[in-house]
Every structure is written in structure tokens, then in C-alpha cells.
């Protein structure tokens, strides 16, 4: 066991996996940093420090700095994956799927199916997502719901350094394209990580707190809010079953349904705006498959139907809070 920051969990896993597997190739904007400058390669790492030292260790062939051309980055990842490599392509901000979605959605996700199952496209697409940095409307978004809806992609949302390492290993050993979503506000968070070459399978949710009164489902940064709310509620003797999904595609439906069968009450926390998001997705699954167990309306805690504002006060109002989660739990409990 060692303590490690979330961002270091990313870098260290990349280092280890690139050593283990020669076919892994990293590419993205400033993943080396300093290319074409007097300071030279690695003068400075990527802006998230999630690729530090890779270039020095693995060289220019396997660590490729790219121009600002996200479609070409994602497309190149597709081409690399189709020809035997395992690209790890970085989108600096998840919001940049806007300029590269075709390659992710219409190409990478669909190759195998369109080509009759003959090909594999083991591309790992890493993206920093999420609000909380006053980075405003184009640098703060959650995109997991959009990508979860796209057949052919797997979507991973680690919430702890331990999960980063276990899930990134699994991603790098998967033969399908994986979207690996790293929350910006978690990069600096520290946590214990187990030793050794452990992996965490996809579609295996993590029970964060256990309780029998209400189920709370969350991912990424939202897991922390759910935990905080659960701890507060525990003081009042309210037991929350807090589930961190870890992956949204594939998703651990069983864990969700099993929990709701016990609690009969469900709160889903989602950082995305309310329409057609992951909260509605889970709600719909439960309303179809665990209907008989439900004792109260399903509550969703989400961002509002608005772009993400810049000002501190507004962004705080935009983001779900532990208080919101707590209120939703109390609301569902008060339903008779």
C-alpha cells in the first residue's frame, strides 16, 4: 500500500503498462511538451502532468506530441489501433469531443461492427472532464452520458487513485475502445493504492458505504458528495448504500438493482445537465427492472439545464452539492 495522487496513479500506470506492453503508444497535445522549443522535449509535461517522463523513457516513437488537431489525434488513434498498436490518446479537455466526435463515435466505436467483427480497435481515449475550476462553459463539461449512449464504446469514470490504477490497467488490456474520464478536480486528490499488478474489471461497481434505507448512485467527483451526504445522514441513523459505478458502459446493473431491492429508495447523482443523462438512464433501468421494489419516486441530483458559468458563485450553484444529495435522500425518505 502506498499513498498516491490521482494524477500520479495515471502516470505511474502508463509507465508500468508501457513497459509491459510494447504496443502501447501515447499521443496528444503537449503530452511531451516543449517539442520544437529551446527547452526541448519534456521541458514541461502536459498541462495535467499525466504523461510526465514517458517521452524520456519510451522515446519519440511511442510518445507523440501532436498539433492542435483533435480529429486527427482521435483518427490517428483509430488507425494505430487497427494496425496492432494500443494507442492512448489524450483529449486535453473532454469538451473537445466537439471537434473530434466523428472519429470517436462514427469510426473508432463502429469499426468492429461495420467490418463484420474482423477487427479490434483497442484505443484508450483519456479525457479530463468536469467542473469546479472556473473554467467556464467550454472547459468544464461532463460528457459521460453522451459517450455512454454510443454503442461500441466502453466508458470508465474512476473516482479514486486506486480505481484509476486498476481500471486503467483493464482499459489498456481491453480489446475494445475505452473512454477513460478523469475528473480535473480529482487530479490532486490523494489515496491509498494497493501494491502489485491488480486490475479492476469493468461493470463491477464499488460499494462505498453500506446501508439499508436509501441507495445513492454516483460516479467520478459525485462519489465524494454522496459519501459526505451519507456520513451526515448516518448521524441521524439513516443508512445509505452508496454505489460508485466506476464504469458506465458496461454498467453494473446488478449492483444497482440489488441495492434498490433492499432499500426501495433511490437517489442518483450526476454532474451532467438533467436531460438524457446517466441519472435518467439509471432511473429508467430501475423503473423497468426493479419497479416492484420501489417505495418512493426516484430522485435525481444533477446540474441544471444550462451551460456552465464562470463566476465562483454561479459555478457553485451549478454543481450538485453534498447538501443537495442529502436533501434528495431526505425527500425520498419522507415519501410514504
Amino acid at each position, binding site marked *: 500500500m502506498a499513498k498516491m495522487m490521482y494524477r500520479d496513479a495515471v502516470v505511474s500506470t502508463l509507465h508500468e503498462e508501457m513497459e509491459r506492453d510494447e504496443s502501447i503508444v501515447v499521443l496528444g497535445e503537449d503530452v511531451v511538451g516543449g517539442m520544437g522549443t529551446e527547452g526541448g522535449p519534456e521541458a514541461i509535461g502536459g498541462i495535467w502532468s499525466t504523461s510526465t517522463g514517458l517521452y524520456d523513457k519510451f522515446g519519440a516513437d511511442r510518445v507523440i506530441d501532436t498539433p492542435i488537431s483533435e480529429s486527427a489525434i482521435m*483518427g*490517428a488513434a483509430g488507425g494505430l489501433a487497427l494496425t496492432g498498436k494500443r494507442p492512448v490518446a489524450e483529449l486535453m479537455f473532454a469538451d473537445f469531443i466537439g471537434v473530434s466526435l466523428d472519429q470517436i463515435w462514427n469510426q473508432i466505436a463502429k469499426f468492429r461492427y461495420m467490418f463484420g467483427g474482423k477487427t479490434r480497435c483497442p484505443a484508450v481515449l483519456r479525457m479530463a472532464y468536469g467542473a469546479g475550476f472556473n473554467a467556464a462553459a467550454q472547459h468544464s463539461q461532463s460528457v459521460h452520458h453522451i459517450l455512454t449512449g454510443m454503442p461500441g464504446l466502453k466508458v470508465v469514470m474512476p473516482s479514486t487513485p486506486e480505481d484509476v490504477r486498476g481500471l486503467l490497467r483493464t482499459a489498456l488490456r481491453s480489446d475494445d475502445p475505452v473512454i477513460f474520464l478523469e475528473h480535473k478536480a480529482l487530479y490532486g486528490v490523494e489515496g491509498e493504492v494497493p501494491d502489485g499488478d491488480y486490475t479492476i474489471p469493468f461493470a463491477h461497481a464499488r460499494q462505498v458505504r453500506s446501508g439499508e434505507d436509501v441507495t445513492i448512485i454516483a460516479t467520478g467527483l459525485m462519489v465524494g458528495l454522496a459519501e459526505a451526504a451519507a456520513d451526515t445522514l448516518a448521524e441521524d441513523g439513516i443508512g445509505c448504500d452508496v454505489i460508485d459505478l466506476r464504469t458506465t458502459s458496461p454498467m453494473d446493473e446488478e449492483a444497482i438493482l440489488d441495492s434498490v431491492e433492499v432499500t426501495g429508495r433511490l437517489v442518483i447523482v450526476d454532474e451532467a445537465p438533467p436531460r438524457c443523462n446517466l441519472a435518467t438512464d439509471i432511473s429508467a433501468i430501475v423503473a423497468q427492472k426493479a419497479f416492484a421494489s420501489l417505495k418512493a419516486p426516484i430522485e435525481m441530483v444533477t446540474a441544471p439545464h444550462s451551460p456552465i458559468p464562470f463566476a465562483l458563485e454561479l459555478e457553485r450553484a451549478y454543481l450538485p452539492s453534498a447538501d443537495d444529495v442529502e436533501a434528495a435522500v431526505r425527500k425520498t425518505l419522507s415519501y410514504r
Partner: protein
Amino acid sequence: MQLSREELVQAFRRMCTIRAFEERLHDVIATGEIAGFTHLYCGQEAVAVGVCEHLDNEDKIVSTHRGHGHCLAKGCDVTGMMKEIWGSSEGLCKGRGGSMHIADTDKGMLGANGIVGAGAPIAVGSAISQKIDGDGKVTITFSGDGACNQGTTFEAMNMAVVTKAPCIFVFENNHYSEHTGFEYAVGTSKDIASRAEAFGMKVWRGDGCDFTSVYETMREVLEYVRAGNGPAAVEFDTERFYGHFEGDPQNYRGEGEIDRIRETRDCLKIFREQATGAKLLDDKELDEIQQAAIDDVEAAVEASRAAPRPQPDDVTKDVYVEY
């Protein structure tokens, strides 16, 4: 014509196969027997064949919506392709892809593509892969004059230059993107190649209706790229004999334009004149080759008609390797 007799025969055979394949599809589609959007390659055969005759299975190509010619030139199975277009479960892609998504990675054919301009970035990735492997192999991406206006095409060219990837951008300028003329849609001081040049690539130009021109131009291009000089681009002027897709009434064509290009710009005719003129092959031999190609295609059509259909349950197969 500096090719051996054998090479010449093979090249002509390939061009004839593409022609026969497309002409046959043209007829079948008119009857409604097969469905979907189909874009025929008739008229451009010399480009696909003149390019791909230089390649082996480890060299890759990335194709477009008008992909049959590229596939056939790269060695994809005629019957497998026809069955695919027929939507059979025995098709090259089990009937899941159809005309616009034929791929055969064993043959180095990384896929036709329904999204105009999407192929170029994929090709750069494949070429980076080859550069890492260091085996002198290349990836060729075909793009139309319309595709050369898509941002992805430019990004890919720049990326290839920056990464020094052995990627070759082959522009097939058939003067039309759908129903719009090249002169209107492509802003340029000269041509497509000159745009590529401004990205720091060495460029070539050739006559896409003349197999020899394509083949000899590509010999130079490939020598340059295989030697590790990074990417290159080449523009071939060519002609599209049919409409943009099957069903296109083509009212945008000039009076007599189709007759004229069929008469003066038919790569099969031009090849025949050159081959007979140089006394390398005679008309009888050429006729036999052409007939053999037609027969092959006819057999493929018959096989496709008799081929098994996909099962409804297969609809969700092969979305993932493992989910």
C-alpha cells in the same frame, strides 16, 4: 510502358474487374434488387489499380464512400465484396457494413468510409504504426476533390508532416463532389496538390485516366516515401462515369459530357491503345481478359443471390470483443 507482360495483364485484369463490378451493380441497382447508397467507381479504375499494384498486404489503404475500386485493387475478394453489397451474412463484413463500409484488414484494406474526409486521420495513425515498425511500409489514403475541403483532411496532412509518417495522400479529382463542381467548391490558387504542398509535403500530379501515368507517378512517390522522407501527396485528374450515387439524374453535367469522357477519357480504352500500340498485348488477349473479369463478376452476382441472409439475432453481435 515499362511493365512486364505479366504485370500488364494483371493490371488490366484488375481494372476490368472493377469496371465489370460497377457496371453490373449499376444494372442491378436499377432493378431495386439491392438497397442502400452505392457510389460507383467507373472511370477512375486506373487510379486505384495504378496505386495498388505497387503495394502488398502490409501496405495499407484507407478508402472512401466510393470504395469498391480501391478494395478490388487492393485484393479484396470479388465474391466476398459482392455478397457484402447484397447484404449476405457471407459478405466480407457479414452484411453489417455494406457498400460504404467494406474492409479487409488482412489485405491491408482499412475500410471504406461513409464520412467524407474521415479516412485521412485514420491513415495517418496507420502510417505512424508503420513508422514505429520501421519496415518501409506505407499507408495510402484516397480522398476526392470534395473531401479535400473537410477539416479532417487538412489536419491529417499537417499531422503526417509533423510526425513524418509514411502516409500518401492520393487526391482523386473527378471534378465533382455530389452535384457541385470542383471550380466552385475548392478554393485554391491552383489545384489540390498545391494546397498539400503548402503543408510542407512533396507533391506529384498525374493523369488519373492513364494507368501508365498513375503507375509511374506512384513509383516515384513510393520510392520517396518508403525511403523515410515522410508523407507525400499526389493529385490525379480523373472522371466519374456515373452519377454521384445510383439514382442521380446528373442534370448538372454538360451537354454530351458523359459521351465525351467515355469516348476520350476511358482508362480501359487508353490502356488498350497503349498496350496494343506498343505491341505488348493484342486486342484478342485484352478482350479475353475483359471477358474473364465480366464472367467472374457474373459468378459473384449469382453467388450473392444464392448466399445466406443474416439472422435477425446477429444484429447485436460483434459490437465489442467482450462487454
